[in-house]
């Protein structure tokens, strides 16, 4: 078990106070829940968050959300931001780009953003109703990049362990070519040599280039450490100038020691801060995954995704069981893994898509479930941009999707292939096509059309809205 350091103790202390206050206040009038939204490589976080907010505000398309279907939800509205130092999620802007006669997908967001939504509802519990006829739930949606989630396991890895893992991964098939330059350079340096800034900078640059190449390559999702790609405020800071080194730890004054120090600084300043300021305060988490994109890209991409998923489940292993975890771990007790863009395949394929995702997270999930957090999977689409239609092909009736592909003006009908069982995933090719958002989405005032968004919300928030 990792020993908590002093920093952890102080932040844990302040969190304890906050939580105690929350517990006392919750019984009375308002309660609040923080929902973390993250996703691996272009999984559609922004669209998801926009669709969730829009649908909760209008509540016209959520038959599977109990609080709506039983008529207990009175109203939802946007509230001022609670945290002064976190950017606001630009809901209005994103909604505008998604709806209207000429819709486009919003620009991908970088970094963290947040939005607070207050929901006023009638509680089912008689006791609560006596205190207050209508209860208020403040829903804070925190949207952060999936790479930050993948960074969290670094907290438990030493520089040597991390180096070994990263080097091993970089030597494998799809990445070997991308990392060739950097690994060639590694061959020329001596980790036990004198610590020189120039060496560290060259190594970091080559390593960053490799990570960028991974990101731009089709279908690779495991990118670690995340800030090398999106440095934000840390551009050119020393804590971003390190890279994994082969071999065992070396003595004082060596290159190894310099890079190890920087790795530790990265962990303290970037990862631990994210953990304490944001992640540890989340109550629920949804991880969006573009399974179809990985299938499109081939077996390597799927293997890579499986690894990322296992890594991303790591932080939830501590569940909410022991008191020590309650202090130092997360309090997330429900995690939903959602395969997004389910509208790119015919609706009859959704169960298969979900089963595939189930298989991908199966091993990691078993451990998590055992230790506390409840994990579920779902095939969803935050914005439904196609329709399932039937088409005849050589005497066979095929279930296809109809929509307007990105970059075209006219509708087309696509048969994307069917999703098989995990073991023969790559026996057959796929062709999933990105579609444009439907014109005039949500113009009927009922919220953006979606697939299973309501069931996802019921799983994530249902008990808070009981």
């Amino acid at each position, binding site marked *: 078990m990792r020993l908590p350091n002093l920093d952890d103790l102080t932040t844990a202390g302040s969190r304890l106070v906050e939580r105690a206050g929350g517990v006392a206040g919750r019984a009375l009038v308002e309660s609040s829940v923080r929902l973390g939204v993250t996703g691996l490589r272009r999984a559609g976080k922004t669209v998801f968050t926009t669709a969730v907010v829009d649908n909760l505000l209008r509540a016209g398309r959520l038959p599977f959300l109990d609080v709506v279907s039983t008529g207990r939800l009175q109203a939802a509205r946007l509230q001022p931001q609670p945290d002064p130092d976190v950017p606001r999620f630009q809901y209005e802007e994103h909604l505008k780009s998604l709806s209207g006669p000429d819709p486009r997908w919003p620009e991908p967001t970088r970094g963290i953003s947040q939005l607070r939504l207050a929901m006023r509802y009638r509680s089912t519990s008689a006791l609560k109703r006596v205190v207050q006829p209508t209860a208020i739930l403040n829903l804070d949606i925190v949207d952060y990049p999936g790479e930050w989630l993948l960074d969290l396991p670094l907290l438990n890895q030493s520089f040597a362990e991390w180096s070994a893992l990263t080097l091993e991964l970089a030597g494998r098939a799809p990445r070997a070519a991308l990392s060739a330059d950097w690994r060639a350079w590694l061959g020329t340096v001596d980790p036990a040599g004198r610590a020189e800034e120039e060496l560290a900078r060259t190594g970091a640059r080559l390593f960053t280039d490799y990570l960028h190449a991974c990101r731009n390559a089709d279908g690779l999702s495991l990118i670690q450490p995340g800030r090398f790609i999106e440095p934000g405020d840390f551009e050119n800071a020393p804590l971003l100038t390190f890279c994994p080194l082969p071999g065992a730890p070396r003595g004082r004054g060596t290159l190894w020691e310099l890079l190890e120090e920087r790795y530790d600084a990265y962990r303290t300043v970037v990862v631990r801060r994210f953990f304490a300021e944001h992640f540890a305060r989340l109550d629920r988490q949804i991880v969006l995954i573009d399974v179809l994109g990985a299938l499109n890209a081939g077996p390597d991409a799927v293997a890579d995704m499986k690894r990322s998923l296992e890594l991303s489940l790591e932080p939830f292993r501590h569940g909410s069981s022991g008191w020590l975890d309650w202090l130092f771990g997360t309090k997330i007790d429900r995690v939903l893994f959602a395969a997004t863009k389910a509208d790119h395949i015919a609706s009859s394929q959704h169960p298969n898509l979900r089963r595939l995702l189930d298989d991908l997270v199966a091993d990691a999930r078993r451990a998590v479930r055992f230790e506390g957090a409840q994990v579920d999977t779902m095939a969803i689409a935050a914005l439904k941009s196609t329709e399932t239609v039937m088409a005849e*092909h050589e005497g066979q009736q095929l279930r296809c999707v109809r929509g307007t592909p990105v970059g075209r003006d006219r509708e087309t009908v696509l048969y994307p292939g069917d999703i098989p069982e995990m073991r023969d995933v790559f026996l*057959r090719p796929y062709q999933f096509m990105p579609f444009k958002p439907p014109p005039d989405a949500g113009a009927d005032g009922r919220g953006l059309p979606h697939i299973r968004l309501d069931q996802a919300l019921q799983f994530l928030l249902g008990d808070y809205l009981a």
Partner: protein
Amino acid sequence: MTDRPTKDRTWVPPMEIDPAHAAPVPVEEDAPPGSAAERLPALLAEGQRPGIGRWLFGALAALVLVALGFDTADLLQRSFATSLALGTLVAALVGVAGISAVAMLVRELRSLRRLRRIDQLRGEAGALMVTAAQGEGDRFAGALGRLYADRPDLQPALARMKDFVTDAHDDAEVVRLIDREVLSELDRRAYQTVLLAARDTAIVTALSPAAVVDLAVVLWRNLKLVRTVAGLYGARPGYVGSLRLLRRMLANLAVAGVTESAHHVAVEALGGSLVAALSTRVGQGVINGLLTARVGITSMHLCRPVPFGPHNRPSLGKIRGELMSLPKQVL
């Protein structure tokens, strides 16, 4: 990868298709009901073998009918012989009686058919809820819509349900939507009816002067309850239908166990005897009320087109609480 052997010959490669050749997924509203209903005999089957008693009954009924026919013909002849006016009058009476008998028969048959239809729907719903297939859900929704076509009170719920169902929902989801949007309202009303009936029987039994009276009242109230609940769910049973329901219910009361675990039954019995020790009459009232409640809840189970799930089963708990507070009110 395309040249790898594929398992089945019907495999189709991914491709684009001319939009002109595509059509929305058809909604087969009037397809013949699948074999799903037969696969799931959720409740006790009744009268599998026509026994000797049935033959006896049938023969006797036929005899009575023949005798009635002869007598009527005789009566007609005699009245016409007496006077034309009397003959016409009697003929008219016979005509009215005959026509209304036929009408009643037709109504009974139709109500029986509705009951069977609901049974069938329940079987289908049960099967749809466990498969993740697609395409049958719309048909089911259509069948249910037709069943409730003459219910103006359900039209808003049905319209809402139609609005919600998209081409992305699979069968189980469609059935769950129907359950939540349309049937939950009916459940609430049916439960209220059962609650009232249970209270009525309890009070009447507690206050009635003679045992015969409360026996009659309990029987009548139970029959009425069964008909009301069945009517709420769209079964509208006639006399024969209600009797049949009641009979099936008695058969199922013990077997289906309503929602009761052994624990609940024990509590119920214990509570009943405790109250009985206080006052025999009131105790009897509570027991009778509970019986009525069980009859009502069983009839909810039997008349609902979609089987109850674990989260929305009606429970005796609330009714029991209500009944247990009765002694205080009455005494």
